[in-house]
């Protein structure tokens, strides 16, 4: 029996958007695993993450999620949590309504939603802002709200786009610890993209390097610097070593 059941599998995935192209991306992700894609700005990280969420139909190859082509599963039945870099909170709703949105869409009872929102708010220490609108929140607060909103439906897969890049290191560290604890409790798999080496090695179990739309390889995080890499990936790692 396999150690972990496979949750996501990409095979020869190709996608062209304008002048940019994701080329021949292949990887797999087990349930309860944390995988990071590391790359410079413009490497195709967000496009890859959106492709894993199934927002685009592939030009070639496929990305399957629980054995089915992800873009063929209706959006509202995918059970995937997504955290955009700008958090994308609903501006027309309070923090409370934002967090409870997923459960409302799943037609849970009011009592259940109230209790779950309170639990999430306590976990992320955002009880005092529950009645505020997103426009009045700081970046750190917005991020906690977005994470609470994404996790309240207990998704099987959480996709994070540069989750801590807009935060100061202290806030980023604090939220990252909270996320790690909660992820362990909820047992959901995570794929996140970042350009930050520290974030990549702190949060993930395996790291893939993405350069110019091509996945250069995936290795366990401890073997990031000892693995043989193609020149583009080696250059990326070398640049980071110098800084």
């Amino acid at each position: 029996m396999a150690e972990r059941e496979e949750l996501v599998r990409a095979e020869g995935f190709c996608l062209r958007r304008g002048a940019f192209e994701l080329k021949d991306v292949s990887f797999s992700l087990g349930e309860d695993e944390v995988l990071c894609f590391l790359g410079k700005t413009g490497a195709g990280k967000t496009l890859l993450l959106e492709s894993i969420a199934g927002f685009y139909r592939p030009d070639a190859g496929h990305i399957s999620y629980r054995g089915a082509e992800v873009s063929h599963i209706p959006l509202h039945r995918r059970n995937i949590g997504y955290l955009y870099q700008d958090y994308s909170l609903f501006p027309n709703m309070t923090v409370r309504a934002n967090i409870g949105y997923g459960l409302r869409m799943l037609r849970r009872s009011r009592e259940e939603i109230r209790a779950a929102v309170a639990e999430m708010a306590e976990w992320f220490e955002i009880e005092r802002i529950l009645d505020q609108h997103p426009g009045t929140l700081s970046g750190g607060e917005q991020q906690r709200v977005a994470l609470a909103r994404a996790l309240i439906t207990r998704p099987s897969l959480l996709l994070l786009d540069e989750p801590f890049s807009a935060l100061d290191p202290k806030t980023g560290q604090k939220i990252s610890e909270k996320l790690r604890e909660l992820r362990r409790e909820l047992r959901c798999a995570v794929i996140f993209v970042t350009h930050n080496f520290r974030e990549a090695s702190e949060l993930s179990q395996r790291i893939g390097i993405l350069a110019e739309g091509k996945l250069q390889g995936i290795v366990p995080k401890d073997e990031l610097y000892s693995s043989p890499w193609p020149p583009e990936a080696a250059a990326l790692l070398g640049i980071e070593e110098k800084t």
Partner: protein
Amino acid sequence: MSSPNKQPKRRPGPFLICCLLLALLTLLFVGGNLFIIIFRGLKSLPASLGQAETLFAVGLSVRSACISTLLCFLLALPTAWLLTRPELPMRGAVEVILELTMSLPYIVLGLSLLILFSSPFGKALKAAGFPVVFSRNGIILAQLMVNLPFAIKLCVTALRGVDGKLERVAGLLGASPGRRFFTVLLPCCRNSLISAVILVWARALGEFGATLMLVGVTRMKTETLPGSIYLNVSTNDLNAALASAFILLLLTAVSLVVDAVFRRLGRGRSRYG
């Protein structure tokens, strides 16, 4: 005592003078129209308001504009939503049809409606108790026809103004397309849509060309405010025509004020709209 920062006054250049003169001329030209309608219309208003014809025209105009605007958005919103879906095939062709309809003179649209509703189809409708040609239903249909492409365009612009990521996030959180539309899309572009409704209502109120072609203008039967102006000018009653024009101007001004109030209210609440 002169301040050290004081700079010599610059004389306006010839280009600036030319622009100022042309702008003044434009203002006189446009403002002059308003001036005539306001001052001469206001003078004739008390007498006109006592006439049953004027009150009939105001009632019919407001009522038909309200109904046609409601119908317009009931059709425009779903169409606009479809047009904002990237996966919709032939989207370009639909947009070309809408643009073409928008750029046609309204009298031509009225003519096509007249042909359509004079056909066996129109006669069947009449037999079923829904007459269009030379009837008040025709006024609503003419306003609808004229405003629909315009309303669709306004709705498309409003819906495209909402960040697509919000809809995707809502979908991944379990919201079906319909619930995404009602819980996220619509509230996020609420202010733009309110402006669109007001604008379309004001246009419906002033619609004349297509209405004239489809239903004609008959006193106390199909007499809208623009129709009333036309009839009064035809009978050489310029004062009554100016009074109707003043009422039209007033209603349009009120709609613009309401629009401005909604915009101001919405500005503080939302990043969108």
